[in-house]
């Protein structure tokens, strides 16, 4: 494939020449202008609103006093504290699940197996779906009365368990408000100030279902990235390893895994920022959940801004989300920029 762009003519004073010289600017300016307005101007506006008392029901509102009032309200809000906990827990489970599963799938379909093209398409397909669609489908699957739990019964797992004298396997999934393990009291015994925490430290069990759904959907993306990575491993290295009689596990540990490292980083960064700003999947699947077990900052921002009309608080939440994403993305961008020079 060759790309034949008309060679730039020497600059002339004709109208034609002007157009030729201006056209790159003209062509790119809509993108620059819209990005400036709809991304950067709005970021500035959001920061300003987060420092103000302005809202549709308080149009006269000016800067808050003290200036960081909305931020202190945000961090002392028990719900937002729980959201930060959920973000950490969800991101950990989701990254581990989606990257791990993606790597496993990539290794599977990279082998010379029959119909691997079909498998690739099948594994990548969930990625093409809308989060809302996945969210609704997984909500049904995880309904404790009618979802996968019915399958446990049908497969006879519970009959088996009752013979062994164990209670039936019937997880409450998204409806389970339990936060495990119960750490607060132990922590309060060591640090008395921890008793003031307005949320339970630990893993909200309901969040595991959400992380499973998200991993299912995005493991195809991770797989595609890893497949591209596997294709970059040169044949001579493969052959050398073969000659040295490297077993499958040694080959993976010494060759595949190190050579895939840059692709693992790409996956972690891209999926990591998806995870930090996730909204639609959780919203469709469980909403804030029992006792905010599945609440995330995105839902908090939405409800505070558009339902409670506390625009300042919502904007403060958005700014915190932006900072979290920036911490993940900016080092990656800087590294990329350096590599390109």
């Amino acid at each position: 494939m060759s790309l034949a762009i008309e060679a730039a003519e020497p600059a002339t004073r004709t109208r034609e020449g002007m157009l030729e010289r201006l056209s790159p600017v003209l062509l790119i300016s809509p993108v620059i202008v819209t990005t400036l307005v709809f991304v950067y101007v709005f970021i500035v506006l959001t920061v300003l609103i987060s420092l103000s008392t302005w809202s549709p029901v308080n149009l006269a509102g000016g800067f808050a006093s003290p200036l960081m009032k909305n931020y202190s309200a945000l961090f002392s809000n028990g719900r937002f504290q729980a959201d930060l906990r959920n973000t950490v827990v969800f991101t950990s489970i989701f990254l581990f699940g989606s990257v791990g599963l993606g790597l496993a799938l990539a290794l599977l379909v990279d082998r010379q197996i029959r119909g691997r093209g079909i498998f690739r398409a099948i594994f990548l397909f969930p990625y093409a779906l809308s989060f809302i669609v996945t969210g609704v489908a997984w909500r049904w699957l995880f309904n404790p009365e009618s979802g996968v739990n019915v399958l446990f019964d049908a497969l006879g797992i519970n009959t088996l368990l009752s013979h062994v004298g164990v209670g039936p396997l019937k997880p409450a999934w998204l409806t389970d408000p339990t936060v495990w393990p119960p750490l607060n009291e132990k922590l309060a015994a060591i640090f008395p100030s921890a008793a003031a925490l307005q949320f339970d430290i630990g893993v909200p069990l309901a969040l595991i279902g959400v992380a499973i759904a998200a991993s299912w959907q995005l493991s195809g993306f991770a797989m595609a990235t890893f497949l591209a990575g596997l294709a970059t491993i040169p044949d001579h290295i493969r052959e050398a390893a073969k000659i040295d009689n490297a077993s499958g596990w040694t080959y993976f540990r010494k060759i595949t895994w190190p050579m895939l490292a840059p692709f693992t980083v790409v996956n972690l960064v891209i999926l990591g920022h998806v995870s930090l700003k996730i909204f639609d999947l959780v919203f469709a699947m469980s909403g804030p959940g029992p006792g905010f077990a599945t609440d995330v900052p995105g839902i908090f921002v939405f409800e505070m801004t558009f339902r409670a009309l506390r625009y300042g608080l919502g904007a403060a939440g958005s700014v915190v989300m932006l900072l979290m994403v920036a911490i993940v993305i900016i080092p990656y961008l800087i590294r990329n920029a350096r590599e390109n020079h």
Partner: protein
Amino acid sequence: MTWELNRRSLLKTGAALAGAAAVGAAAGRAAMAAGKLEIFSWWTSGGEAAALKALTDSYAAKFPGTELINAAVAGGGGTNAQSVLQARLAGGNPPDSWQGNSGTAFFDQYVGPGFVDDITSLYKSEGWEDKVPPAVLDLIRKDGKYYAVHVGAHRCNEVWYNKKLLQKHDIDIGETLSWDQFFAAAEKLKNAGVNALSLGDNGIWANARIFENTFTGLLGYEQTQKLWTGELSFDSPELKEAMKLHLKVLEFVNSDHSALSWDQAVGKVIDGSSAFNMHGDWAYGEFRKANAKDGEDFGWVSHPGTDDIFIIVTDCFTSPKGAPNPQEAINWLKTVGSADTQLAFSLNKGSVSPRLDVDKTKLPPYLQWSYDKFAKNKFVGSSVNGEQVPAAFVQAHFDALTTFVVNKNVDRFAAALAEAQQAISNG
């Protein structure tokens, strides 16, 4: 394969496309002018959609030739729709009329910022002022000016039950229901392996609905009013008692309540998998849709302690400022404010007409009962739907309740609500 990318042709194509878009937009504006009416609502569930259709059918009969655009946004209780509406109003793109609940939140969000027109002249010319009880008019009236037209009044404080299921278990419900009776029945059902109370609170407001009914019943009319004037704190022994009672009620709900929506919960009573449901009378629309018979398949009674109180949520329509088709909007309001249209509407919506001159004999048994209550009861605006309180309080109430139903900490719940209550009086 060779790609020939020619800058000049690209520029020309771009210009042609831009031109075409401009022509298209102009054509779109021209079409808008020809008798259209865009009605915004959150009525998408079966009963609600049928009720909306009763309104639009009536309008189409009275004012033929207008194209009706149904701009409904799904989501129970209108939480999603209100967000969309807020954005449209702020962006200067109002629908011709929108449906909303009346009361404090309505004045805060729509009347205060000047999004709705004053329609006092319509009230005078149609003679609506004498037809509707003053306490209900106050929900859309400020300083003698009217800002919306009520189409229906919902009573929020009902307990619905599956009559056949209760008969099977020898439980009889009379004219009223006390807490002792309810808990006795619930225990009996629980021991028989029947789920006593169905709840669908994947939107926490359905849970808040029960809590509000419970504390209103315990406090009574006078004391409940004091909550909203700030004379009675949420952090008081009376309210804490109500909170404990609420926890006791929740012991009898289905385990998957947080995965279900309110209408799925009503469905459990209809299909006999649960005995009771505590909800407002939009639930009645679900019973009707399922062809369940009033008083035969299902029965109803006031939430314990609230038989003389009508916890009210009204549906009303507005005439937005700067709407594209103001004349059509006024015709729409005239239609939905008329007695015959409201009668047709109430049959599907489960609400009663706020007018006191509707022919009661045409109403089905439940609505006759509710219409009688409307005439006799004292009105308490629902705080769950923002009839009494600003949106910020509603959200704070929901958030506190979400935590409360899990950690069951009465003191913290009371403190959180009291703090939100304090924020109302601080403005």
